[in-house]
């Protein structure tokens, strides 16, 4: 796929996110919309996965540590063909495949059960360690939220990833600056995020605009230093693509009503 087609995938994923959350009448649109470019770029330009063989033991792995961005994850998986797009309409419904947070027991293409913050990056570290130990050329990608980094487990995992020299692990930070209760800096300041990861022993790439698809792809393509896990700290916009959601923490975990859905879709389909 060329960049134009990938941008079209991103646009479609955003439309899917709005519809998923509006249909479900609950869910997390803000942090789903900020993560679109990174997730699309990862699944479409990096990962060796086969939607027809989602359990292939030699596949690359993706762990959505910020599991509440599930609407984005599910839209990307559906676009890739892991399951029919029809499923997106039933997100969060009783007996539906698509759970409120990623569940690897139920959903093809999902490699771990996440949603409890901090755990995904730690599970991904274990996967990368297992791949390395087995001498397998398997890459592991994980995405953490910025607010998520308030969980101590993120740093326990980061310490281990550097200690075990997991250069097959890529951590993406969706740094949109906002969390449920407000701005990171008002809730619990995160300080210098790139410096923190550097200090832990990561090869760090800073992205001034994590919603710039080409820049995201370049960052993912950039090799890490041998023996160092890679961390891409991407400054993103929460609610990206929907004007009235952009930069507003109130859209962290709130569904648009019907009027808001139509307004959002009109912008995305323009």
């Amino acid at each position, binding site marked *: 796929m060329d960049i134009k087609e990938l941008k079209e995938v991103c646009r479609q994923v955003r439309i899917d996110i709005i519809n998923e959350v509006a249909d479900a009448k609950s869910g997390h649109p803000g942090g789903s919309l900020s993560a679109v470019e990174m997730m699309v770029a990862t699944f479409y330009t990096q990962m060796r996965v086969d939607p027809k063989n989602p359990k292939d*033991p030699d596949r690359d*792995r993706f762990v959505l540590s910020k599991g509440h961005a599930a609407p984005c994850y599910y839209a990307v998986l559906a676009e890739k063909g892991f399951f029919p797009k029809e499923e997106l309409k039933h997100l969060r419904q009783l007996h539906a495949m698509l759970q409120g947070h990623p*569940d*690897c*027991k139920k959903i093809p293409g999902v*490699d*771990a*059960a996440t*949603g*409890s913050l*901090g*755990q995904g990056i*730690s*599970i*991904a*570290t*274990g*996967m*990368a*360690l*297992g*791949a390395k*130990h*087995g001498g*397998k050329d*398997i890459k592991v990608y994980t995405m953490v939220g910025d607010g998520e980094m308030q969980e*101590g*487990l993120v740093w*326990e*995992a980061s*310490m*281990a990833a550097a*200690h*075990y020299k997991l250069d097959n692990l890529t951590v993406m930070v969706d740094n949109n600056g906002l969390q449920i209760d407000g701005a990171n800096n008002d809730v619990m300041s995160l300080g210098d995020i790139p410096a923190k990861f550097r200090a832990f022993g990561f090869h760090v790439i800073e992205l001034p605009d994590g919603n710039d698809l080409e820049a995201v792809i370049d960052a993912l393509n950039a090799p890490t230093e041998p023996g160092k896990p890679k961390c891409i700290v991407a400054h993103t916009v929460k609610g990206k693509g929907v004007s009235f959601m952009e930069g507003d923490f109130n859209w962290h975990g709130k569904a648009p009503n019907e009027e808001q859905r139509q307004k959002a879709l009109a912008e995305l389909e323009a």
Partner: protein
Amino acid sequence: MSEKKATRVAYGEALLELAAENDKVVVLDADLSHATMTLNFSQQYPDRFFNCGIAECNMIDIAAGMSTMGYIPFASTFAIFGTGRAYEMVRNSVAYPHFNVKLAMTHAGITVGEDGGSHQTFEDMALMRVIPGMTVICPCDANEAKRAVKAAAAMDGPVYLRFARAASYVFEEEMPFEIGKANVLRDGTDGVIFAIGLMVKPALDAAAAMAEEGKNIAVVNVHTLKPLDTETVLAYAQKCGKVMTIEEHSIIGGLGDAVASTLIGNGCFGFRKVGINDLFGQSGTSNDVLDEYGLSDAKILAQVKDFFG
């Protein structure tokens, strides 16, 4: 009498045997390998041993991740940390997706002794038992510990293996071990004791003492707390009428409650739960704290005489 041996020591030995049989077995520890007895494994199989440092939550999730890559991780630390501090990682990252992680935790119960109340956990089996799909095993001696480790490795899914610090009695006779199948060690008709872990031996001794007084008390070793062998529990309770449970664990949420839940609605029974009575522990030698909390041989015998006599 045979040499005493701690179940944690048997765990360490079992790991070495398993390692030779199955190259998918890997071991994780959180800076306690000298105490959890994973040390020998770490020395003989350094490439299959992963020290996670003093970070138990991360260890559990790393084990979860490794299990998805086809490994059988044994994650070890003290029971208080593995089931307490890392509870939610066990619940959400291991049990919820039903990953093949073995939680092999040592220093459970009161027999931890001198380290005191912060390190003695009587809640661990309760915490693990309420998690759907979790298998919970507490072996009665070193031999059973070894068999339990191998059985846990042979099955798919999460298992909590509970080991003790203190050296304890080793039964000479070879006992069968099947996960979920309680062992009737002594038959009887006047009452039944369901015991788990290190409490099996004093239960048997007490039953032997009762026999001299003409009372035939059955003793059942319930090594698997979950899935509980409800068939054997129900059959012996109905046959014997009076039921006692003995565990080195809180009387809340452990064997006593599991047996009681099985019997509710299935008859009328005399029932007594013997265990830690909703208290925190304290420092002291194993024997001293066992006695202080009512679980020494003498105190158990007194309970048995009082209840069945």
